[in-house]
């Protein structure tokens, strides 16, 4: 047994919502049958982004907001890896917003978990893109990632979970990881993960979350219906959670980007690049330059 990097003790405050995500990710990865050495966790910057240090796994700690770009690079380099990117709402919806939007359209089969606490915890409680009006003097409107995700017409997996319900979260993550491992495309899960120090919303959110699956007409294959259900729930002062979108059936013509680019799943990281195995093809390539 080769000794290598071990998890360190978490740096999170006792009671942090991120503990729920940590536990759910550990369980979901095992339940989805991911070989441990093939798992890569890409962390963002912020409290939540440290998650890769607290699990026995391969990890890369990306730059602030850039975790999706790095995660996409990893998956397209070696499609055999199971890639999970995890960060916060500031990381994903502020500095990383451009990459967030493009991750849907690129549709690379990886899981992106945003731990949304509606605040910048690590820098001690500034307003984030999802902060409610009035929070720490915030006068800007909060951003809703689920409504945005639903508006992008790509066969992605989209869900929202709540750290107060780790059991459901685990089920959702298992489905998301299996979706990725079947090369069906991008999976986005926003977890409502309260910051107990700067924005303790546990009690409030527990009272307001509504699982969309319990609503009449629930149909996660239909964006229009789900958009309507979410907006109606929000109008009623509630917070919609649950699986928001999954394709009705895998579309063979629209798999994850890694499969479109690399049908045999041998990517750049595992390609033979020595001269001997490529000499004939290289010579042909160079001869074609006239």
């Amino acid at each position: 047994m080769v000794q290598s990097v071990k998890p360190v003790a978490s740096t999170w405050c006792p009671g942090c919502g991120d503990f729920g995500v940590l536990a759910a990710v550990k369980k979901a990865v095992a339940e989805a049958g991911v070989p441990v050495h093939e798992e890569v966790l890409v962390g963002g910057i912020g409290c939540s982004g440290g998650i890769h240090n607290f699990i026995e796994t391969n990890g890369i700690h990306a730059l602030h907001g850039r975790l999706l770009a790095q995660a996409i690079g990893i998956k397209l380099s070696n499609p055999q890896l199971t890639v999970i990117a995890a960060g916060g709402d500031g990381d994903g919806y502020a500095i990383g917003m451009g990459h967030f939007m493009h991750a849907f359209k690129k549709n690379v089969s990886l899981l992106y978990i945003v731990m949304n606490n509606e605040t910048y915890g690590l820098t001690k409680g500034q307003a984030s893109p999802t902060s409610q009006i009035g929070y720490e003097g915030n006068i800007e409107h909060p951003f809703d990632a689920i409504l945005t995700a639903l508006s992008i017409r790509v066969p992605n997996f989209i869900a929202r979970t709540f750290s107060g319900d780790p059991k459901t979260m685990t089920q959702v993550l298992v489905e998301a990881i299996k979706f990725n491992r079947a090369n069906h495309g991008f999976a986005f899960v926003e977890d409502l993960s309260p910051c107990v120090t700067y924005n303790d919303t546990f009690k409030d959110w527990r009272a307001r979350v509504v699982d969309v699956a319990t609503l009449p007409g629930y149909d996660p294959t239909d964006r229009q219906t789900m958009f309507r259900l979410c907006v109606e729930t929000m109008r009623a002062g509630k917070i919609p959670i649950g699986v928001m979108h999954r394709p009705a059936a895998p579309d063979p013509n629209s798999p994850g980007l890694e499969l479109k680019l690399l049908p045999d799943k041998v990517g750049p990281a595992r390609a033979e690049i020595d001269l001997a195995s490529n000499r004939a093809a290289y010579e042909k390539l160079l001869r074609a330059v006239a």
Partner: protein
Amino acid sequence: MTTPASKTTPVPGDSGGPGGSPRPKELTDLAVMIGGQGGDGTLTVSDLLGRYFRKRGLYIYTSRNVLSRIRGGHADATMRASRDPIAAVKPDVELIVAFDKEAAEIGRAELSADGAILYDSSAFKLELPNAIGFPFATLVGGAVGQPIFKNTAAYGAISVMMGFDPAQTRQVIEDRFARRGGEALEKNLKALEIGRKAALETPGLADRWHVADGEAQHQILTIGNQAVALGFVVGGGRFFAGYPITPATEVMEYLMRYLPPFHGVVRQAEDELAAINMIIGAAYAGARVMTSTSGPGLSLMTEGIGHAGTAEVPILVADCQRVGPSTGEPTRHEQSDLAHLAHLGHGEFPRVIVAPGTVEDCFEITVDALNLAERWRLPVILLLDQALCQNTTTAEPFNLSKVTVDRGVRLTAEQVAKLDVYQHYQFTPNGVSPYAPPGTPGIFSQVTGNEHNEMGHVSVNPVNRVKMMEKRMGKLRHIVPELPVPHLFGEETAKIGIIGYGSTFGPIREAQATLERAGTKTRFYNARTLFPVPVESLDPFLTSVDVAYVVEHNYTGQFADLIRGALPQHFRKLRSIRKYDGDSFRSPEIVAPIRGGK
């Protein structure tokens, strides 16, 4: 070279007519500038001439002056053909082909003493002594129905002026338009004949210049960006992400064609921030990677390059320099990113900057750069410039004779299984930790831009911090023997030194030849590694000369400053020849200050 006969000696072919030369002037080196409004087909004329001259075994070098817009606006190209190898714009042009007035205005300053301006008199009138008007558009419009073929008619007229072989002239048109089908070919051939006829019927126009045939038929026609793309493929590069930006975009476009058959991936990212981070992710996972960009993109990538430096992820960043800062002049030439690159990023991390001088060198150094990045696990910058990236030139066919792929200490699953411990950031004598890609059974790794210990755990321990800084920065010392060495030209005893990198190579070599003919010996240090400043070769070079001119395209003398900083003992010997007007050096601009002892 044939000695031109004096004007008093009548020779066959001497028409003696107005505007004509008394006899064909025999040349070994000639330049034609073709200019007009976008859509006039000026680049087609340059391409046709290039094709003809290549059939005759000449070396070609074509520079373009285009605006950053899709259609319209003035654009021109200057095509040079020579019996000798060339990598520079010719200081003067023999012929200007003007489809708009601007072409004549821009080109006049560089027109040779016996040069001519051939212009489309159906569009405008030029009141210049050496101007010859042909109503190309009207002539072609009437006969072919579409004035657009005026460019082919101009090619026909030029073929007469330069005494081209008629059959080969026609063959060029057939080669160029065969794929476009019968009608296009037929119309172009008709336009060709119109141009030829008009020129033959004009007294004194035929056979003004002859260019002797050369022996460069075996050469390929390429640009630096294509050479970089090819070098990347054969050097084992398999993942490329980029964002379109002039003058770097062709690297990505070529790779979109080249890489897919090799399990390669090319992605156009949403911005340069994504591009650099995509290659970081791909390199972390074990691929050989590159991105290409220019100044504005480089500014955005700076964040990621620093991350790669401290996280020890091997990446290659090709910077095709253009006029900066900000948007600057997107299509124009400069070498003004070096100071930024040498000091780039917040904090301190090792980076290597290498710079090819020719398109052949672009191919070679790209392969070297990939090996350096992966062997030393650090970011490598491939520093290019607009002229080198985009000017079309003949070159020796690329071959694999110098290509090696060396990935450094990359552990296989079998090797890992025999270890007691795997630490991604293990301290080693040369600072390079053995690398096992994620996915290797039995081990995990943690990679981070936070300061970390050998295991990859975040650490602010002061003792560890010092050791980690020394590990990373020490690579710059240990890597030196592997860095590309300079190419030196001229006699070792010469007391005048010239230092330059990138596309200044060609103009400097021509300046050396001019100076040599005048009895001034020079020695040229063509720098191929710029950072770390190659003191081991620069120190003896500077010791051997009395004075050294650093030739570069920027206002402040960035490379000269780097050298002064690294070798202060030679401070007084260093002079600076700078150009920052957006255009590349002409050799006289280097000759004059050296002659003047400036």
